[in-house]
């Protein structure tokens, strides 16, 4: 027995070590993912080499990576230019004031072309606005509809009618209405932002609304009875019983909404020429240089990565908010 004991020792040590490594890096689950990615890259690289377009060869991974660096460089250059512009302006103004303290100084904003990164942030900001607006409407309306069957029956046809409408159908209407009603000397929000955000909101209202209603309606009947027996006031009933019970369903809706919103936004920006990633794609397409396709591909990948990150962010938030820590969150 002791012989076998000493013989298995190195094996055990190895197993322990690999076990520790396994805890650090989830090797077993990571390996297939990495293999999948590598296969995809190989397929992409070979397929891209065989596709010729009027704008040159379809970009492979290497060309796209080149453009990633190029776009980063452009961004840095633009920032340097901007800093230099403000420095010059400050100097000029200071000189003016030194000559004549009562002189009027004008401070002009830098008007350089937005870089890729600027467009990314514009898109994120816009989607946050639209999604926020939709959530602010959908969650309370969903709770009320879940509570009041009459109201639900009244709203249901409207929900069913507008749920499948594409954002692009809304866009012209939204644009016209916004330009007619949103008139202000010094607008707090850009008009283009308002257009895009409202279009996004109109499309990502529905999943949250429908799921919130379902969540509220399907609260365990026993818990409703507990609330009735205690004769809880409506506000307490909503805060302590309905909302916590409906949170998992609500988050399912919110995640669907955010994913829809992000997809819708890119299309809306493209069509309306509103600043953002969609506009970047369209501009590159119109530009038609030999790098255009690679740059569009960078945008495609960025859109995908951001969409993925947004979903993960919602998942983290759900973990924070939801009481049911054991629920499988995917």
């Amino acid at each position, binding site marked *: 027995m002791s012989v076998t004991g000493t013989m298995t020792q190195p094996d055990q040590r190895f197993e322990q070590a690999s076990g520790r490594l396994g805890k650090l890096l989830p090797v077993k689950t990571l390996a297939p993912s990495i293999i999948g990615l590598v296969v995809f890259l190989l397929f992409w690289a070979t397929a891209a080499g065989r596709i010729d377009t009027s704008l040159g060869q379809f970009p492979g991974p290497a060309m796209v990576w080149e453009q990633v660096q190029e776009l980063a460089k452009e961004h840095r250059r633009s920032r340097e230019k901007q800093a230099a512009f403000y420095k010059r302006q400050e100097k000029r103004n200071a000189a003016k004031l030194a000559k004549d303290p009562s002189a009027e100084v004008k401070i002009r904003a830098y008007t350089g072309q937005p870089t890729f990164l600027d467009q990314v942030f514009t898109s994120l900001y816009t989607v946050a606005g639209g999604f926020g607006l939709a959530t602010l409407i959908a969650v309370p309306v969903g709770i009320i509809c879940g509570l009041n069957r009459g109201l639900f029956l009244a709203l249901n046809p409207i929900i069913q009618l507008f749920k499948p409408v594409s954002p692009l159908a809304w866009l012209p209407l939204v644009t016209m209405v916004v330009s007619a009603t949103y008139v202000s000397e010094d607008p707090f929000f850009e008009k283009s932002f308002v257009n895009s955000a409202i279009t996004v909101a109109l499309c990502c209202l529905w999943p949250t609304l429908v799921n919130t209603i379902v969540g509220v309606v399907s609260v365990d009947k*026993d*818990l409703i*009875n507990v609330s009735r*027996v*205690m*004769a809880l006031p409506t506000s307490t009933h909503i805060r*302590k019983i309905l909302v916590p019970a409906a949170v998992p369903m609500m988050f399912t809706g919110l995640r669907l909404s955010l994913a829809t919103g992000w997809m819708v936004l890119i299309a809306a920006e493209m069509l309306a020429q509103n600043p953002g990633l969609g506009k970047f794609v369209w501009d590159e397409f119109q530009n038609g240089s030999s790098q255009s396709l690679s740059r569009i591909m960078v945008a495609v990948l960025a859109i995908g990565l951001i969409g993925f990150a947004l979903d993960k962010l919602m998942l983290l938030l759900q973990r924070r908010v939801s*009481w049911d820590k054991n629920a499988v969150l995917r």
Partner: protein
Amino acid sequence: MATSYLELSQVGIEFDSRHGKFRALDDINLSLDRGEFVSLIGHSGCGKSTVLNIVAGLHEATEGGVILEGKEVNRPGPDRAVVFQNHSLLPWLTVYENVELAVNRVFKGLKSKSERRDWILHNLRRVNMEHALDKLPSEISGGMKQRVGIARCLSMEPKVLLMDEPFGALDALTRAQLQDSLMAIQAELGNTVIMITHDVDEAVLLSDRIIMMSNGPAATISKILPVNLDRPRDRLALAEDREFVRLRHAVLEFLYGNKSEPVTPAATALTDDAALDKRESITTEKKYRVTSGMRPLTAMA
């Protein structure tokens, strides 16, 4: 005018079902004294839960009514607290918060914040649950959950405590422990209790009277059995007690004895309560239910 504490007079209820009106209960008359402990016993689907729900105000009687301390009852309220079979604690609140919700509802404005805190702790101590204040319901056992459910009801100082098969889902040992706790609490506080049970021993051990209900549809009270055993009662001593054995036999006789009486299709198939009674219907329903039409049970046996 009767001067009883709680009075059900000529209570009947009809439900709308796919097959038209369905009469679940008919002419239920029952009066309880203050501090009395009463059990409702009967086959699944006979409408025991419906009686309890009418007293709780969760169901409205079609005819007749319930009078508690001279006032008619027609909506739910914390003066008639219900201990549900499956504990029904809010899973997102801790043990303390579950009781707090009830205490704040009833005593906000009447007790100060620290008084309310003491009261919550006092009630949890009563059921021996003060060690798990910050646990979530998912982190404690079934028996513990039911204890907290009882504490939540007691904390509201209800005039009547309604218990819908409170210990039905627990194992025998836990059930015995909780029965003893309940007896001790009731002896101390003098609560008026209506309890639904399927457990004959439990009914005899805990009750002052056992209300035996006939089978539905149009179920009603068919027999009331007074339990004149001295309190405090001890389950070990009673096991050999003649009177206990006689009472126990009387209940069994009622439940399983007279098979010649035709059994009509069980009520649960048609009423709202079908969903609530799902658990019992799996275990006991089959035995008493006649599947096709009005064929008597004897034909099946």
